[in-house]
C-alpha cells in the first residue's frame, strides 16, 4: 500500500507509439521475402515436400497454440480436423471436380462446425472430459475415413487432388501456402492482445474469476476450440493440394500426438514456439531416418519427449527464452502516467442499489442461507457480518452467481439478476473480490486490471479501444497505489498488494455495487489501516460497497449499515452502532451466559 500522494498523476513523458502497422513492418517484409523465396528458388522434390509439410503442419499447430496455449483447453483431435480440410479438398476436387477454393472453404466450415459442436457438448465440464471426448472423436473420425468407402475410398485414400488454377505449379502453390502461414501466424501472434485473447488467457489462469469479472467463460472456450479446429481444417486443405494424395493413416490419433508434441516442444503459448517445434519435429526425423526401420521406435521417442518436455521445459524452447526476455523488459519499461481514477456508478434505479428478498441456498438438507433479506442503500458502505459458518460467503457467492439460489430474488439497480450467470451480473454492474485471491497469475498487474476494465457496459472506457483500456487500468492501479509497478507479474507482488490489485480490477470496471469478500483477511495492522483509507476514498466517490469481514474495528468504522447472519438467517439489521449492541448479536459472537 502507499501514501495517498501516489494517487496524483505522475509526470512522465511517454514516447508516442508509432502506428501498429508501421511497428510490424519488419514482420511483413520478412513474410514477403519468404513468399518470394518460396516462389523463385528451385527446390528439388525432397526439400520441396519437407517445406510443404512444415508449412501446412505449422498452421495446424498454431491452432493448438490458441486452444491449449492461450485458453488452456486440450484438443487431442487436431489430426481429425486436419483430415476434414484434407478430405474436403481431396474428395471435392478429385471426385466431384468442384473448385479448389470452394472445397477449401467447405473444409474449414466443416471443421468449424464439428469443433463448435464438440466444444459445446463438453467444454462446460472441464479438462478430463475434453481430453477423453477429443480422443474418442478422433477415433470415430478415423473409423469413418477407413470404413465409409463410398465417400472416402477407404484405406486406399484419395489421389489426383487438384490445385487452384492460379497456383498450378508446385512452386507457386508453396508460395501461396507460405503466404497463408504468414497471415495466420500474424493473427495468432496478436490474438493475446485482443479482447478475445485476453478473455482466453483469463479463462486459462482462473476460470472462476474470469466469469466473475465479466468474461463469458463458456463462449470463450468454445471460440478457442472452434478457432483451433478451423486452423486445423485450413491446414489440411492446403496439405491435400500440396501432396495431391491423402489416406486415413495421415489423420490418425498418432498424428494428433505429433501435433501436440510439436506444440509443446516449441512452446505452446506462442506461434513462434509452434513454428520452431513444427520445424524441428519435421527436420529431426528426416535426419534420423534410420530409426524408421524399426516400427514404433519413432513414436516411442515422441512419447518420451512429451514426458521430458512437460517435466523439464514446461514452456517449451521459445517459452524458455521469452520468459527471460519478458523479465528483463518488465524491469526496464516504465509504465505510462495516469490521471486520477473516476468512479461514476450508474444510477438507474432508486435509493436501493441491491434488494435481496427471501434469499435461500440449500446444499441437500443443509440450509446454508435461509430466507435472508438485505437492502443496500446507494452510496453507503454496508457490512454483512456473522460468526464462522453463518452463511456470509455463501450469500456472496449466490449474489455473484457462482451458486444458484434455491429461492428468493435479487434486484441490482432495479434489474432482476437472480438467474443470470456470473458474467452477465458483472455486465449489469456487479464487481467483486475474493477472500482467497483469484488473479490471473501468468499476467502482469496491468493486464489483470485491463480485463476488468473491459466489462461490457463499462461507460468509462469510451469505445473500448486498447489505449482507453490501458489508461483506465493505469488509473485504477494508481488509485490503489501500485501504478508504478503495473508491468510486473502477479507473482512478484506481496499478498496485501495482490489484494489491492483485485480491488483495482473490480474498480476499473466502474461497477454499480462492489462486493468485498473479507478484504482484511491475512493483512497486517498497517495494511488494514491503509485498506480502511482506501475504502473511504472509494466511498467518497459515491460507489456503494457491500463488505463481508470478521474485523469488527474495520466494519464498525467503515460501515454505516450492518446486517448480521447466524446459522443462515438474518438476526439483526440496521444502523451500525445499534446493531453491534443488539443482544442477539452479542450472544452470537460471545455466547450467552
Amino acid at each position, binding site marked *: 500500500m502507499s501514501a495517498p500522494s501516489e494517487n496524483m498523476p505522475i509526470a512522465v513523458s511517454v514516447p508516442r507509439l508509432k502506428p501498429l502497422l508501421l511497428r510490424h513492418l519488419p514482420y511483413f517484409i520478412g513474410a514477403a521475402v519468404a513468399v518470394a523465396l518460396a516462389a523463385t528458388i528451385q527446390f528439388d522434390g525432397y526439400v520441396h515436400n519437407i517445406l510443404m509439410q512444415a508449412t501446412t503442419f505449422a498452421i495446424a499447430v498454431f491452432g493448438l497454440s490458441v486452444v491449449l496455449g492461450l485458453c488452456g483447453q486440450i484438443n487431442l483431435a487436431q489430426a481429425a480436423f486436419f483430415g476434414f480440410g484434407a478430405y474436403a479438398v481431396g474428395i471435392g476436387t478429385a471426385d466431384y471436380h468442384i473448385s479448389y477454393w470452394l472445397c477449401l472453404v467447405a473444409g474449414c466450415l466443416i471443421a468449424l462446425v464439428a469443433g463448435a459442436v464438440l466444444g459445446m457438448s463438453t467444454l462446460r465440464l472441464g479438462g478430463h472430459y475434453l481430453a477423453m471426448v477429443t480422443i474418442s472423436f478422433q477415433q470415430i473420425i478415423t*473409423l469413418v475415413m477407413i*470404413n465409409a468407402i463410398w465417400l472416402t475410398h477407404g484405406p486406399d485414400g484419395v489421389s489426383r487432388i487438384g490445385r487452384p488454377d492460379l497456383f498450378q505449379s508446385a512452386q507457386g502453390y508453396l508460395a501461396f501456402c507460405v503466404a497463408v502461414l504468414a497471415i495466420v501466424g500474424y493473427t495468432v501472434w496478436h490474438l493475446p492482445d485482443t479482447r478475445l485473447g485476453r478473455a482466453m488467457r483469463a479463462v486459462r489462469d482462473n476460470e472462476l474469476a474470469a466469469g466473475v469479472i465479466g468474461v463469458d467463460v463458456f463462449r470463450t472456450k468454445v471460440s478457442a476450440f472452434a478457432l483451433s479446429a478451423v486452423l486445423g481444417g485450413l491446414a489440411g486443405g492446403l496439405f491435400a493440394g500440396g501432396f495431391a494424395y491423402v489416406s486415413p493413416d495421415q489423420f490418425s490419433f498418432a498424428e494428433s500426438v505429433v501435433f501436440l508434441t510439436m506444440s509443446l516442444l516449441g512452446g505452446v503459448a506462442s506461434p513462434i514456439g509452434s513454428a520452431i517445434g513444427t520445424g524441428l519435429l519435421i527436420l529431426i526425423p528426416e535426419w534420423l531416418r534410420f530409426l524408421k526401420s524399426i516400427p514404433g521406435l519413432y513414436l516411442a521417442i*515422441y512419447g518420451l519427449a512429451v514426458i521430458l518436455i512437460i517435466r523439464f521445459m514446461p514452456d517449451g524452447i521459445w517459452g524458455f527464452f521469452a520468459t527471460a526476455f519478458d523479465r528483463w523488459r518488465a524491469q526496464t519499461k516504465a509504465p505510462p502516467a495516469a490521471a486520477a481514477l473516476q468512479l461514476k456508478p450508474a444510477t438507474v434505479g432508486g435509493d436501493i442499489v441491491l434488494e435481496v428478498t427471501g434469499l435461500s441456498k440449500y446444499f441437500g438438507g443443509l440450509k446454508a442461507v435461509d430466507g435472508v433479506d438485505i437492502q443496500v442503500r446507494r452510496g453507503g458502505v454496508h457490512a454483512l457480518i456473522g460468526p464462522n459458518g453463518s452463511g456470509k460467503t455463501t450469500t456472496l457467492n449466490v449474489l455473484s452467481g457462482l451458486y444458484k439460489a434455491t429461492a428468493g430474488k435479487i434486484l441490482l439497480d432495479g434489474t432482476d439478476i437472480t438467474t443470470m450467470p456470473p458474467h452477465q451480473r458483472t455486465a449489469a454492474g456487479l464487481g467483486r473480490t475474493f477472500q482467497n485471491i483469484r488473479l490471473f497469475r501468468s499476467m502482469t498487474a496491468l493486464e489483470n486490471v485491463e480485463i476488468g476494465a473491459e466489462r461490457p457496459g463499462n461507460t468509462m472506457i469510451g469505445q473500448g479501444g486498447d489505449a482507453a483500456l490501458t489508461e483506465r487500468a493505469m488509473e485504477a492501479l494508481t488509485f490503489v497505489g501500485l501504478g508504478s509497478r503495473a508491468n510486473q507479474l502477479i507473482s512478484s507482488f506481496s499478498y496485501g498488494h495482490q489484494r489491492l490489485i483485485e480491488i483495482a480490477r473490480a474498480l476499473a470496471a466502474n461497477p454499480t455495487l462492489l462486493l468485498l469478500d473479507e478484504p482484511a483477511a491475512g493483512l497486517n495492522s498497517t495494511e488494514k489501516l491503509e485498506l480502511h483509507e482506501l475504502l473511504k476514498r472509494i466511498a467518497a466517490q459515491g460507489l456503494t460497497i457491500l463488505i463481508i469481514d470478521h474485523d469488527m474495528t474495520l466494519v464498525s468504522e467503515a460501515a454505516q449499515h450492518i446486517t448480521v447472519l447466524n446459522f443462515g438467517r438474518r438476526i439483526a439489521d440496521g444502523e451500525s452502532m445499534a446493531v453491534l449492541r443488539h443482544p442477539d448479536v452479542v450472544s452470537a459472537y460471545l455466547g450467552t451466559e
Partner: protein
Amino acid sequence: MDLVLQLLFTGIGIGAVYALVALGIVLIFRATNVVNFAQGEFSMVAAYLMVVFAVDLGWPYWLSFLLALAGMALLGVIFNLGVYYPLRHRSFLPVIIATIGASILLANSVLAIYGPQPQVLPGWFDTPGIQLGPVYLDSQYLLIIAVTVALVFFNYWFFEKTMLGKKLQATSQDKEMASLLGISVSAMIMITFIYSAVLGGLAGVLVAPVLFVSIQMGSTIALKAFAATIIGGFGDVAGAIIGGLSLGIIETFGAAYISVPYKDAFAFLALVLLLIIRPQGIFGERVAEKA
C-alpha cells in the same frame, strides 16, 4: 431370444474387462485427481508379458500369470516415480499430457521390441466352454465375470474394512489433513498406482485369449474404460463397474444388429449423447468448484 441371451452374456463378459480397467482409472483419479491416460497400456503390457512367459518361454500358465502381475506392480512403481510424482504439484493439464506421453511411449516400445504381428494367447482352461440351454458359455468369459465379481467384493472389503484401505480413502479426500494425521501421502499414492497397474494388468491378461494380443488393444480398452467412467459418473467406483458393463452390452448388440466395422464408435456415441443429456453421469459427480 436365444441370440439376445447369447449377446447379453458376451456383452457382460467384455463389459467386465472395461469395468476392471475403469476401476483402475477411478482409483488413481480419486487418489491424485488426475486421469491416467496410460491405464489401457497397463493391460496391453501385461498381455505381452503373458505371451512372453506362457507362450515364448513355455512356463506354466499360473506362474506366468503371477509373474505378469508382479511385472505390472513394478511398472506401477516406475510409472508413479517417472510420470506422476515429479509433476504432483502442477495443475492437472501437464500431468494428463505426461500420461498421454507415457501411453504412447509404452505402446510403441512394445511395438519396437515385439513387432506389429498380433499374438495369440491360449485361454486358462482346456475346456472351451459349456452349453447351458440355448446359451453357450465361453469358459474365458466365465472366468472374466467371476474375477470381476470377486474383485468388486475384495475392493469393498479392502477400502471399507481394512486400515490401509481407510488410509487410502483419507488420502484421496484430503491430502493435507491425512499427512497431518501421520499418513504418508506419497506411500499411499504409490500403493494406489501399484494397485491400479495390477488391476489393469489383470484385465489385460484375462481378455487376451478373447481378443488378439496387439499394440492397439491398450488404447481400445482404455477408451472404452474412459467412456465407462464418465457414463458411471466420474470418480464413482460402483458407477465405473455399471458403466463398463453397460458399454460392453451396448457395443455387442450394436455390432450384432447395426454394424461391425463401427463397433468401436457406439461406445463414443453413447458417451457424447450422455454428456449432452446428463453431463454428471448416471451416478453424478459434484462439479462445482468452491469460491
